[in-house]
């Protein structure tokens, strides 16, 4: 399988604080890679750098062999990197459908100036382009199973479904790599199973997934491989079962004796 993403010596400082230090890893096309670690380990910072919301202090990110570090979030998305957020960032005043429509990718590449000119001067083509976009958006709402909320304002969605809406919106941009930041946080056990199923379904479409998750059931269930971050450093990598029993990982999560004495 071909490599889709590689990071080399990725490092991020916030002032004097080192949030991520010298992290090197790679992802193969089509895999699900789990990213775990205690709170404050730098997982979200790492994802923010890959989605180019943050520029690394040092190191490189290569997406499909092309340098993508620090190019800006919107450009990273155009290259094929989409994401969801730990605290959902939906467009609350838009309808559920419009949230997904906003992501349908053909619309993005033209830029605002051309869109303005087209919207005013271009005669209606009978709405063919709009229909195609609508079909795509409706198909995605079906896919994440929130079609019946189609015309609701997004702010009225139950919390668990806003997570699904974010996924549909990300998928609307037709990504090759999807970054999921704690897709299961705040979900009840029944919703958890649905979420696992959905992530598998997305992966089944050939989309590579990098997932941050605290819920062990989810991460052990779906990950092909795991990476463990601790204080910004990668301390383990491998098959879920072997990482799980790695003494260094156990220590990071439970604390060693010197930690406990504090």
């Amino acid at each position, binding site marked *: 399988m071909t490599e889709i993403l590689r990071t080399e010596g990725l490092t991020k400082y916030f002032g004097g604080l080192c949030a991520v230090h010298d992290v090197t890893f790679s992802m193969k096309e089509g895999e699900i890679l789990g990213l775990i670690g205690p709170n404050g380990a730098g997982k979200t910072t790492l994802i923010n750098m890959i*989605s180019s*919301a943050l520029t690394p202090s040092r190191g490189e990110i290569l997406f499909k062999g092309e340098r993508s570090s620090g190019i*800006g*979030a*919107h*450009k990273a*998305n*155009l290259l094929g990197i*989409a*994401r969801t*957020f730990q605290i959902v*960032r*939906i*467009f*609350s*005043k*838009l309808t559920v459908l*419009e*949230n997904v*429509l*906003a*992501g349908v*990718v053909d*619309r*993005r590449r*033209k*830029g*605002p*100036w051309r*869109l*303005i000119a*087209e*919207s*005013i001067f271009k005669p209606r083509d009978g709405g063919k382009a709009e229909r195609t976009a609508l079909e795509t958006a409706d198909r995605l709402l079906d896919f994440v199973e929130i079609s019946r909320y189609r015309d609701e304002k997004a702010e009225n969605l139950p919390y668990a479904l806003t997570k699904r809406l974010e996924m549909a*919106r*990300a998928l*609307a*941009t037709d990504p090759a790599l999807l970054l999921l930041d704690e897709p299961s946080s705040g979900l009840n056990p029944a919703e958890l199973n649905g979420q696992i199923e959905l992530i598998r379904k997305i992966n089944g479409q050939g989309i590579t997934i990098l997932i941050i998750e605290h819920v062990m059931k989810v991460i052990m269930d779906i990950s092909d491989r795991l990476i463990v971050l601790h204080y910004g450093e990668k301390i383990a990598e491998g098959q879920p079962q072997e990482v799980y029993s790695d003494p260094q990982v156990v220590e990071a999560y439970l604390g060693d004796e010197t930690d406990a004495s504090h």
Partner: protein
Amino acid sequence: MSANPAVRNRLGLVLVLVLLVLLPRIIQDRYHLHIIVMMGIFTILTLSWNLLAGYTGQLNLGHAAFFGIGAYTSALLAMNTGLSPWLGLPAGGLVAAFFGFLLGFPALRLSGPYLAITTIGFAEILRLVAVNWVDLTRGSLGLSGIPLLTPIEIGSWSMKFYFEKDYYYVVLAGVLLTIFCMRRLVRSEFGVSLQALRDDEPGAQSIGINISQYKLAVFTVSAFFAGFAGALFAHFSRLVSPETMALHTTFDILTMTMVGGLGTLLGPVLGAVMLTFLSEWLRYFEDLIQFDIRLVVYGLLLILTILFMREGLAGVVKWIADWIRSALKGEKGGTPS
């Protein structure tokens, strides 16, 4: 059955248009026509401000500056170079658009109150330039005797622009053009992207929206329409002073839009019409009680709107329309589950 509402809407639209075209025959009094023309000019202004504040979430408190730039540009071009005021209308819009583009840059880094303060500063600087550049602008006296719109002659048909009723049709055309453009803009991919970045900037970026470019673009477009309104105003009132750019003009626009309904297309129109009418009506009282009550009423209306009807008059209209629709449905007994 399904075609019925669309047909009804078309019919309603045609009826409103006919009424608007016939209005100067119904209301012939010059004073009232003057007020109606001002309603039209403020409608263009509120619609343009609404594109920024309502659809993009950018609080621009310097909008009056764009209005003033458009007014001064068209007036000065007509007075100093003899350019036809008809060309001055788009020229005023274009020069304002250029300044809008410039004001877009601070908006890339600032938001909320910081952006609001910067835009106030922008408008104040321009106002002071207009006050102090006496050679060009005649300072605080302002420009007077601005040329009227030149007569149009097509074959044997001609139209002169002497009276309020003549300007009424020009401004009506301007308002309809603005509504048409705004409607197309906010419903387009451009408009959806604006609303997306209004609701969540990182979220918008994550789906490929280049928010910097969108902000620059929307400031430019918004300023164009404000400048266009300014140019219309210059050739109608024939008097432009630096006061045009003062903060209170922006607050009039803000109040009209908020009371009418922020982030809707109907709201700014309703707000501009109602409040222009209201402030003229209040003048009778002001003469009686010798007190400038207009601003007090505006302030009160703003507070009441924010407290009790966030969606403004447009929200009330929609609520009533929904209520009537559901009542009609109930009568037919066809309530779907």
